[in-house]
C-alpha cells in the first residue's frame, strides 16, 4: 500500500460516521477530500447524478460485481484491488477493452478513515495499472455491526474491438484448454490470513488484471473460442459451467495443472482440492488446437507465477462431463462443487 497520509483531518474524523453517507456536508467533505483526490477533479460544471461518456461506435460489454472479502487486506491484494480487477477481468473475458468503472461503497460506521484511504489508494493504483477510469460512484454508511468494514460494488463498461463471438457456444471438439498460470493462490492466501495459518513462504493472492493478456492474444490473431476467469469455485467449477453451456465433455490432465508447492501443501493440510480454490488473476482459454503453441507463447510473457499450461482438450462426446485423468493415470469425474469447501476433521 502507498504511504500517503490520509487527507482527512484525523483529529476531527478518524472514523467513518453515519453522516458520511447522509448526503450533507460530511459526505461532500468525504468526496472532495478523499475520492476526488484519488480519482480526479470534479467536472467543471459540477457533479451530476450520472456521468455522460463518449463511446466509439462498437459493441460494448457491461458487467457488475460485488466484493465482500474478509480480511480487507490480505497478502497480494486488498478489497480495493480485487474490486477493480474483478470487473476488469469480467469484461476482458468477453474480449472487451475495459474503459470505465463505477464504484459503490457500503461502509460500516466506525471504520477507520485510514483504512478507507488505504483501500481508495489501492483502487486508484489498480485502476491505473489496468488502464480504466473510475467515472462515477456512490457511498452509503450502515450502522456499526451491520457491515464488515467495507463492501464494494463495481460495474464496468468495455468496448469490443474484435469481430469474434467469445462464448461457450463457440467451443468445438478438439479445442485445446489452456490456463494462464498456477491455480489456488488467492483462496489459500485468504484462508491462511483468516485462520492465522503460517507457511514457510507467504502465499500471495494472484489478484491481477487480465485485459492485457487478452489483448495480446487477440493482437496475435489467436482465434479465441471461449474464456472464463477462475474465481469462486476455481478451475473445476469454471470448466463444468462451460461443459454444461457448450454441451461438450472436457478432458483434463491433473498433472498438467500448475499448482505452486506451498499452495499444494496448504491445500493438503486443510483438506482442500486446489482445483476448487478461488483465483483472481487466472482464466481458462479455449482455442483451436493449431493456436495452442502461439497462445502459450503470448501468455508466457504475462506470467505472474508458474507459466501458462495446456491442461486438456474438448472431447467429441456431448455429455457435458469434465473428466480428470488423475495423477496415477485413472479417469474420474471432476464435478462442480456443492456449497463451499469445508476443512476436514483429520
Amino acid at each position, binding site marked *: 500500500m502507498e504511504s500517503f497520509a490520509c487527507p482527512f483531518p484525523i483529529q476531527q474524523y478518524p472514523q467513518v460516521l453515519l453522516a458520511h453517507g447522509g448526503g450533507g456536508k460530511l459526505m461532500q467533505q468525504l468526496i472532495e477530500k478523499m475520492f476526488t483526490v484519488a480519482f480526479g477533479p470534479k467536472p467543471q460544471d459540477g457533479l451530476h447524478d450520472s456521468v455522460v461518456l463518449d463511446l466509439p461506435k462498437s459493441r460494448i460489454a457491461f458487467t457488475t460485481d460485488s466484493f465482500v472479502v474478509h480480511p480487507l487486506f490480505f497478502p497480494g491484494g486488498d478489497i480495493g484491488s480485487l474490486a477493480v480487477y474483478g470487473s476488469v477481468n469480467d469484461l476482458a473475458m468477453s474480449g472487451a477493452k475495459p474503459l470505465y468503472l463505477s464504484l459503490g461503497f457500503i461502509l460500516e460506521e466506525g471504520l477507520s478513515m485510514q483504512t478507507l484511504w488505504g483501500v481508495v489508494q489501492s483502487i486508484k493504483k489498480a485502476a491505473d495499472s489496468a488502464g480504466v477510469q473510475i467515472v462515477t460512484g456512490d457511498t452509503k454508511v450502515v450502522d456499526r455491526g451491520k457491515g464488515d468494514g467495507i463492501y464494494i460494488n463495481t460495474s464496468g463498461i468495455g468496448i469490443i474491438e474484435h469481430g469474434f463471438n467469445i462464448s461457450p457456444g463457440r467451443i468445438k471438439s478438439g479445442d485445446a484448454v489452456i490456463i494462464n498460470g498456477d491455480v489456488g493462490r488467492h483462496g489459500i492466501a485468504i484462508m491462511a490470513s483468516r485462520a492465522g*495459518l503460517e507457511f514457510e513462504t507467504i502465499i500471495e493472492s494472484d489478484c491481477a488484471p487480465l485485459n492485457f493478456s487478452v489483448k495480446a492474444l487477440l493482437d496475435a490473431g489467436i482465434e479465441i473460442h471461449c474464456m472464463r476467469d477462475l474465481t469462486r469455485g476455481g478451475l473445476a467449477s469454471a470448466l463444468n459451467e462451460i461443459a454444461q453451456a457448450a454441451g461438450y465433455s472436457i478432458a483434463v490432465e491433473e498433472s498438467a495443472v500448475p499448482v505452486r508447492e506451498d499452495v499444494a501443501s496448504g491445500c493438503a493440510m486443510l483438506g482442500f482440492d486446489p482445483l476448487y480454490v478461488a483465483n483472481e488473476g487466472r482464466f481458462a482459454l479455449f482455442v483451436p488446437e493449431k493456436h495452442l503453441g502461439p497462445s502459450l507463447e503470448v501468455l508466457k510473457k504475462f506470467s505472474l507465477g508458474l507459466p501458462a499450461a495446456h491442461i486438456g482438450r474438448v472431447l467429441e462426446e456431448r455429455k457435458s462431463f469434465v473428466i480428470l485423468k488423475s495423477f496415477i*493415470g485413472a479417469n*474420474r*469425474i471432476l*464435478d462442480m462443487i456443492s456449497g463451499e469447501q*469445508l*476443512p476436514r476433521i483429520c
Partner: protein
Amino acid sequence: MKYLDEYRDPKLAMQLSQEIHHITTRPWVIMEICGGQTHAIVKYGIDTLLPKKIELVHGPGCPVCVTPLEMIDRALSIAGRRDVIFCSFGDMLRVPGSTTDLLSVKAQGGDVRMVYSPLDALKIAQENPGREIIFFAVGFETTAPANAMAVHQAKVLGLKNFSLLVSHVLVPPAMEAILSSKSNRVQGFLAAGHVCAVMGYDEYMPIAAKYKVPIVVTGFEPLDILQGISMCVKQLEEGRYEVENQYVRSVTLQGNRHAQDLVSKVFCVIPRKWRGVGEISQSGLGLRDEYKDYDAELKFDLTGIKTMESPDCISGLILQGVKKPHECPSFGKKCSPEHPLGATMVSSEGACSAYYRYKRNS
C-alpha cells in the same frame, strides 16, 4: 512436492497395480477403515487399477458419518441458544440433524464458528468470559489428543465457560463389531494410518489373531493404498493373518505415548452409539468424572429433543460395508450433496459423497 509427489508417481502406481494382478488368484474382500482412504481410492481411481477379483468395501472411519443423529440434534439445540458460541470443525456444519443443520442455525442468528483446532475454541472462551463456548468434539483416536489437551488446559486456566460436546469413537471395537456380524464379508483390513500414528498398532494384534484377518496399517496417498492392498492380498493368498505396517514413515508399534497418556487422563472408555450401526460396547470416549464440569451434555438442558432418522437412508449398511452407495435407491436422486439424507453424503470423507463426486458416470 516433497513427501507428496513421491507417493503419486504414476509409474510406481502401475508397477504396484501389476504386482497385485500378479499375486491375486482368488476373490478377496478388503475394507479400508478410514474415510480419507475411501476418498483417495475414488478420487485417484485406485479401484480401477485393481484386478476384478479384489473388492474394496468402505469402512466406518468417517467421523462425521458415524456421529449419531441424537448428538447432532443436541449440537443444534445448544448452538441455537443466544448465550453460546458453538465451535466445530468445518466438516460437521452441513450434516443434517432431524430438522436442520449447523449452517442453518448460524443463518438464523446462532453464533456458530468454524475452527481448526479445539485450542482455537479455548482461546475464544478466554476472550469471551460472558458467554458459554462449546466445542463439538467428534472423531476417532486422531482428534482425541487435541480435545483432551483443550479440556486439560481449560482446567489448568480455571475456565468455567468452556465445554465439549463429546462424541468420540474408537476404531478397534468397530472392527470387531463388523467381524462378528453375521453379514460380514470382510476378509482383510487396511487400518487407518493416522489413528495408528496416535495409538500404534499393537492393539490390532489380538483382533487379527481372533478373527484370522490380515490387517495392514496404511497411509492415504495412492502409492500407500496400493502398497497396503498388495501387502494385504499377499497375506490372504498365503493364508497369513498378521498386523503389518505399510505407513512406516508415520506409524510406530507403540504410537504416540504422550498423546495416549493425555487421552487416558481426560477421557475414559464408554459404550457409544454409531450412526447407522447402533450401540457398540466400549467403543467410545467420554469425559472422566474429574472433568465433568467440561461436559456440555451435563451443562445444558437437552431434554425434549426428538430425533428422526430418514427412512430412505441406508448409510448404516454402507458404513458396515454391506452395501455400496450406488446400490441405494435414493443415491443421486432424493439424496445428493445439496440435499443429503444422511451424513455419508455430506462429509468429504463420506463414501456416498465420494461416489457422487467422482463416480456418477460409471
